[in-house]
């Protein structure tokens, strides 16, 4: 057989049948669901008198609508949202699908709980009615978001009519400088290749800088690949990835699995439709200035448009964000700081933020929230004493959920409020109508919380 990429190997291994030149019927190993993109799929199934083909390959969680206040038990007060949660539970019950319900101690964001309990395994195909399913590429699993019609198709058949993607390889060599993270790296890459730079492509990340990342950092990287339009992201599984999975999946026969997983890499002469190469060593902390994730600059950079007039899109984004061309973001006051989401709501993210906050206080007039990505992350952070660090500094220590990442629950920024956020999307209105989002790393968000401004975390003195 001619040489193949990792992507192609995974697709081939899941091809039930080739439908035409572009499309295959692709088998789905794990299908994840949430409360707001699945109801119409279950309803469609029911209306057609169909059943769920393979319930054991499915899983659901309540994540987007859930309130995150620190009260027990958690009650969803908004009637329509409450109905969505009950509806999800009823659908799972009816079809025998595993669920992490509202008051489950392990409930959380779908992309946080699935890997942390060993559900994501190298070489898998994972689908979910959520665009950030690309996260699982961190473990060498092909994950991608699907719409509700496709959710129904997967429920009914455990397969998807899938159009093969083009292939891109992004190599990152060098090592990440002090004060920078995978978040800064992916923001930089998106700013270089653009919000549609990887549209139609599955991106394989490789290079020394990638292999040096922890699995959690790889999640952050692959999670945001979709913000460059990617249909998937992949990192070939190595030692690091495999030990992460095995530690969480005691049921696996590790010898057989490892033999299999170690073949999951692109052949050395595999060809890619497009290739990029970056050097990590010159990376600075990144902050988004606009309303699309590619509108991002290094913390010591200036907003665009200083020479001549900004184009219409740039002007519109600057105007929405209350900024002008050619200005620095440093020193810009923030009213809200949000630490959480499937991009940066894991334990390492909370540790990084806590390290900056320890011994400091949230600046006057700033509302700062930490929303752990899952019940397990919450518990671990409490056990490690991180929760106390946040609370003593004046942060709100919340329960897990998506929260202000998309503000579908009651966590919302007000019009004109500027938010330093560890999330993935700075879209207009995403965190609340008229709210302004600046995407950044957890450490940078923590620095914004304690200074009340967007600052370069590298300039903060390390407290003993």
């Amino acid at each position: 057989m001619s040489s193949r990429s990792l992507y192609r190997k995974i697709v081939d291994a899941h091809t039930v049948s080739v439908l035409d030149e572009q499309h295959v019927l692709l088998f789905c190993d794990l299908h994840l669901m949430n409360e707001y993109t699945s109801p119409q799929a279950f309803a469609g199934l029911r209306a057609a008198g169909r059943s769920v083909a393979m319930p054991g390959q499915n899983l659901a969680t309540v994540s987007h609508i859930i309130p995150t206040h620190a009260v027990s038990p958690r009650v969803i007060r908004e009637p329509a949202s409450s109905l969505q949660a009950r509806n999800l539970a009823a659908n799972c019950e009816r079809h025998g699908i595993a669920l992490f319900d509202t008051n489950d101690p392990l409930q959380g964001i779908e992309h946080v709980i699935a890997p942390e309990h060993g559900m994501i395994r190298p070489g898998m195909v994972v689908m979910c009615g959520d665009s950030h399913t690309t996260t699982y590429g961190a473990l060498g699993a092909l994950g991608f978001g699907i719409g509700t019609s496709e959710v129904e198709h997967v429920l009914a058949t455990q397969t998807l009519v899938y159009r093969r993607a083009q292939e891109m390889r992004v190599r990152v060599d060098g090592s990440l400088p002090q004060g920078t993270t995978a978040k800064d790296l992916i923001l930089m890459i998106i700013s270089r290749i653009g919000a549609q730079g990887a549209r139609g492509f599955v991106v394989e990340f490789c290079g020394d800088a990638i292999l040096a990342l922890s699995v959690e950092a790889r999640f952050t990287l692959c999670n945001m690949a979709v913000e460059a339009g990617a249909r998937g992201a992949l990192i070939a599984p190595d030692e690091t990835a495999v030990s992460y999975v095995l530690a969480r999946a005691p049921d696996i026969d590790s010898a057989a699995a490892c033999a299999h997983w170690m073949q999951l890499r692109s052949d050395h002469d595999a060809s890619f439709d497009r290739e990029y190469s970056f050097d990590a060593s010159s990376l600075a902390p990144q902050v988004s200035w606009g309303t699309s994730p590619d509108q991002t600059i290094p913390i010591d950079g200036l907003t665009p448009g200083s020479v001549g007039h900004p184009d219409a899109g740039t002007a519109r984004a600057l105007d929405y964000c209350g900024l002008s061309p050619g200005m620095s973001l440093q020193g810009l006051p923030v009213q809200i700081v949000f630490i959480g989401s499937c991009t940066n709501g894991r334990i390492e993210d909370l540790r990084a933020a806590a390290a900056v906050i320890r011994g400091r206080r949230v600046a006057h007039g700033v509302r700062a929230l930490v929303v752990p990505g899952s019940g397990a992350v919450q518990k671990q952070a409490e056990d490690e004493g991180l929760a106390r660090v946040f609370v003593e500094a004046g942060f709100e220590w919340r329960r897990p959920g998506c929260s202000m990442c998309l503000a579908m629950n009651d966590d919302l920024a007000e019009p004109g409020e500027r938010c330093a956020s560890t999330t993935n999307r700075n879209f207009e209105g995403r965190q609340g109508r008229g709210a302004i989002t600046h995407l950044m790393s957890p450490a940078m968000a923590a620095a914004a919380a304690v200074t009340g401004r967007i600052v370069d975390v590298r300039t903060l003195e390390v407290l003993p």
Partner: protein
Amino acid sequence: MSGTRTIEGIAAVIDIDNLDTDQIMPKQFLRGIDKSGLDKGLLWDLRFDGAGSPRPDFVLNRPEWAQTRILIGGANFGCGSSREHAVWGLQQFGIGAVIAPGFGEIFQSNAVNNGLLALALAPQEVRALVAEAARSSAPLRVSVDLGDLTVRTPESCFAFHLAARHRQMLQEGIDMIGATLKLQQEIAAFAERHWAARPWLRDVGRRVRQRLDQTGAAATNDEIIARSER
């Protein structure tokens, strides 16, 4: 959509690049368990001001555009969130086709699956349509022919590409699940082979949930983490 050959009518220009699905259908309209009432939420922040009053200058609020059938959008239309509500809302509003230089991947699949035509033209062709619309005082009328795959306006005619499968879905509205279910036996046989070689993938969702239930969720998770940090 059955038997559709042409989509024809008034076109409105929304010349914004990266118009994401959060903007097309904001979060407050995603609370349903059915598909109803989404026309109301379409492009909410662009159509209405903070107090909920229509913005009179926004194209879709102008009386001459009340019958808009076609949107002409910017690059990467429908990027971002996978929410199919964006497509349902466009259709409920009366939109049959969106013409843009390119679309978010999931949006495009969602459009195909619902019979909304997401029609990609070259950037300069879309710019020509935008310019033509700007020149004419009355709303631009556009006609999309699914037979010969052309877009026509009073001044121009552009050819576009549509995969055979998608054209069939638009014109006949095929039941994709029904078609796949005809391959049920093949799927089952595939799964058995797949799991024989990779036993760790069979029932992965259910089995992990059972393990967590059996061992006591909270305690197990601590162990999991302790193990992984060794």
